[in-house]
């Protein structure tokens, strides 16, 4: 039997919730195509209840992940880069097919995405030094301000940039110690699923990152209105549709990240806006005396 004649083992593409890979509780799936519309795979189509489960998993993971030392979180993020490095080819192929980019470009995108994990890995223990302060208050008190993760962050990942864009919105959430519920690019979901497998094998605690595939239009309203989500990133939602979601977000005073109206050039080294968007400042006071 020749090599060519072997039938490849196709992967079942599932959701990533609480560290496990379930199918959608709804039993739904949808066909994801390549850039030219050819069938790539059937992908789980997450439901409102899957989203609810993902938020619960993220909430459950929050105390542990947010309390992990910054050093530890940095190592975990770096580990993601290490494991991703081993799957460069697979990621490049997924990007090339899904986004229709030439293979060279796809490889370069993958490299940038891996490097982005490294970049954010280095940020974990710089946040409080850079953003925090010891406050010279006018009185016999020691006052200091530190930054802390805001909680569960709900993210609508970019629709175009299915890997680099996704990493660019997910990594800062994890770097701050927040936990994430991400709705992947609706039409280009495959790299997200591969990334989920990488996260699962990279010491990222179960539930810290949850990735849903499916219809962003369908899921976004439930994410925006979920009272147990602390912050919302609407990058993947067209600007004209954000208003309604932001209105829902107001119901529980969610932090809504300030993001560009259209997808930015993800290859540019990011600033710390996204990190800041996931952080709270906490000021602590104590008297100084004998």
């Amino acid at each position, binding site marked *: 039997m020749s090599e060519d004649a072997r039938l490849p083992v196709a992967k079942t593409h599932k959701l990533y919730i609480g560290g496990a890979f379930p199918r959608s509780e709804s039993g739904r799936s949808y066909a994801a195509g390549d850039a030219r519309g050819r069938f790539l795979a059937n992908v789980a189509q997450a439901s409102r209840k899957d989203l609810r489960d993902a938020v619960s998993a993220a909430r459950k993971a929050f105390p542990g992940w947010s309390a992990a030392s910054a050093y530890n979180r940095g190592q975990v993020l770096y580990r993601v880069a290490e494991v991703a490095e081993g799957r460069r080819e697979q990621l490049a192929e997924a990007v090339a097919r899904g986004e229709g980019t030439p293979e060279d470009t796809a490889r370069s995108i993958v490299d940038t995405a891996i490097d982005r994990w490294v970049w954010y890995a280095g940020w974990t223990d710089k946040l409080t030094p850079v953003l925090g302060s010891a406050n010279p208050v006018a009185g*016999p*008190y020691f006052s200091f301000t530190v930054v802390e993760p805001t909680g569960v962050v709900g993210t609508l990942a970019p629709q175009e940039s299915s890997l680099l864009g996704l990493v660019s919105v997910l990594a800062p959430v994890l770097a701050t110690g927040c936990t994430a519920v991400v709705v992947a690019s609706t039409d280009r979901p495959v790299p997200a699923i591969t990334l989920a497998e990488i996260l699962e094998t990279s010491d990222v605690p179960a539930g810290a990152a949850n990735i849903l595939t499916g219809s962003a239009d369908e899921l976004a309203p439930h994410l925006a209105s979920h009272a147990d989500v602390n912050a919302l990133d609407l990058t993947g939602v067209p600007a004209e549709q954000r208003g309604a979601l932001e209105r829902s977000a107001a119901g529980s005073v969610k932090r809504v990240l300030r993001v560009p109206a259209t997808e930015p050039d993800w290859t540019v080294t990011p600033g710390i806006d996204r990190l800041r968007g996931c952080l709270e400042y906490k000021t602590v006071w104590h*008297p*100084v*005396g*004998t």
Partner: protein
Amino acid sequence: MPHTAADVPFDPEDATRDEARLRRFLHGLPGVDRVGLEQRAADLATRSIKKSAKLRAIDTAIGMVDLTTLEGADTAGTVHALCARARRPDPDRPGVPPVAAVCVYPDLAGTAATALSGSGVAVASVATAFPSGRSSREVKLAEVGMAVAAGAAEIDMVIDRGAFLSGRYGDVADEIVAVKQACGSAHLKVILETGELATYDNIRRASWLALLSGADFVKTSTGKVSPAATLPVTHVLLQAVRDWQAVTGVARGVKPAGGIRTTKDAIRYLVAVREVAGERWLTPALFRFGASSLLDDLLMQRRTQLDGHYSGPDYIAVS
């Protein structure tokens, strides 16, 4: 307040049974946060006391003064003058109450007793190797006995700060108990010399130690060490007698001494007495000022209040 739950009866006997229990008790008292205490004292010091409340405060304060002279150069003459003033602080104004006591060194207690005879003004004498307290127990007790025999109705003793600071609480307690015994019927004021105790935690422990050992009054200072009395320190002492009363039912007194020179100062202390310990303590039986020059200002301000214009030192008889 001791950290015991409300339903566990407080037992002074038990607290002082042995050195270990005493230490455990004193170190089990709640801590004092310096900043919070000083903030509260400063806030309370902003009370504005005017008109009849001020006049009333001035007369109350006059009646609480332990008119004090503790100089090496004191003579029978200076003590006579002081006693005359104590009886009638402002001879032109017959309504002025006498002061609470005249406070002198033991060798002048007899002189003071004669001069104050029949006046209602008590003789207080410092004793126990005042102000340092550095002598033997025998000498200290002999000094107390001598002062009492000479007519002192109140003894102001100093604690052994060295023993206290090195943690020998039992020694300090034993000495207070012994002095109390030597006092007989004389009232005992225990000077903590808070300026040497370094922390408010220590001041609170020393207050309780003195109360547990039989002090009738806890007193801040000798007047020979700086800082002497301060408002926050007096707050701590007032809290101690307030809490002592709450757990034993017995009211003991407080005496800030040293550095209280103006009517404004005195009124701030009275406000603290009223709002920290309670109205009940606003009596010479439970609150005194140890002071030498305070009386001058009280009398001057009293005239200002009554005459409707400012007065001057030339109108107040000095001693």
